[in-house]
């Protein structure tokens, strides 16, 4: 029984891992510096793969993620966007994930009053 328990734990640990693929800056120079109220926010979407080999669905386009991020966090401006792409492996399924992380300048109505 103990052997089975240890074997199951090993299988779970070995099958559950994250493989990063890329990290890209979606930003060019000459951007204005964010204000003091700016915060980091993120938005992600997942696809689905079988056995880490057969891709069934892909994550959304980065523009969709950025727009969702802007709407959800009510950002007046989005600065320094970064795109991460990685795959979470769990047993026989894997999830390719796109994540956009950016600095969010809150809309004027969201700024705290002095």
């Amino acid at each position: 029984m103990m052997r089975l328990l240890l074997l199951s734990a090993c299988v779970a640990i070995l099958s559950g891992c994250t493989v990063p693929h890329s990290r890209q800056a979606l930003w060019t120079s000459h951007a204005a510096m964010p204000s003091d109220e700016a915060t980091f926010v993120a938005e992600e979407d997942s696809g689905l793969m079988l056995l880490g080999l057969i891709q069934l669905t892909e994550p959304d386009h980065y523009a969709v993620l950025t727009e969702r991020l802007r709407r959800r966090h009510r950002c007046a401006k989005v600065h320094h966007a970064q795109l991460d792409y990685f795959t979470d492996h769990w047993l026989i399924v894997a999830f390719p994930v796109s994540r956009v992380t950016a600095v969010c300048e809150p809309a004027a109505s969201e700024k705290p009053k002095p």
Partner: protein
Amino acid sequence: MPLALAAAAALAAAPAPPEDAAEDVLTSSAEAPLLPRRLSARPTTYGVVGVGVERFGSNFTGSDQFDNQLVGLTGMWRISAFGPHALLMTKPAVEHFRDSRFLVGLGLRGFYRVRGFTELSYGVGSHFEARLEDHYWLAYVTPLELGATIWDKGSWNIELFVGARRAVGGSLINHYLIDPNGFNDAEAREELDRARHERPWKGFVRVVFARRID
């Protein structure tokens, strides 16, 4: 001369280009969305696929707890507030295939979002379990499955389900690969009768690590 003055006045009145005019396309403002809403809105129908661990049995105490642990895959097609779902789980027996268990099921859940807190669900379903280790199969109905999202971040969420199933059918599995000692084993038949008639209700607790797929 008047023309030159007018041109100079027009140039002076024109707004100066902003300092950050060279920002890339990703820099946007609330007044200028990056995409139209129809392209960026979250769909109301999407899939949720996850890995589940389930404790399924009639004994929740005692020393033999590992015997009732199942692991497997879950999938749900979320349509607005409803979610038809499927389940495929097993208790793998690495050394002896005939000691393993397999559970498959189909069901339907309804969801209720408690704003700012979590999402709750109520579900019903039917399941089929092949208990090779006990030499029989059982069919269940699940009239009660309560669920809650206990962690939610990005496309990740962790869901907890508790519920009860009732055995409504079953029979011995008479196959030489599973029961090499002979068909219609008396001990297996007694155990099947107990599972079907004496202890037909079984509880379950399931934790699902899932991702939203849209």
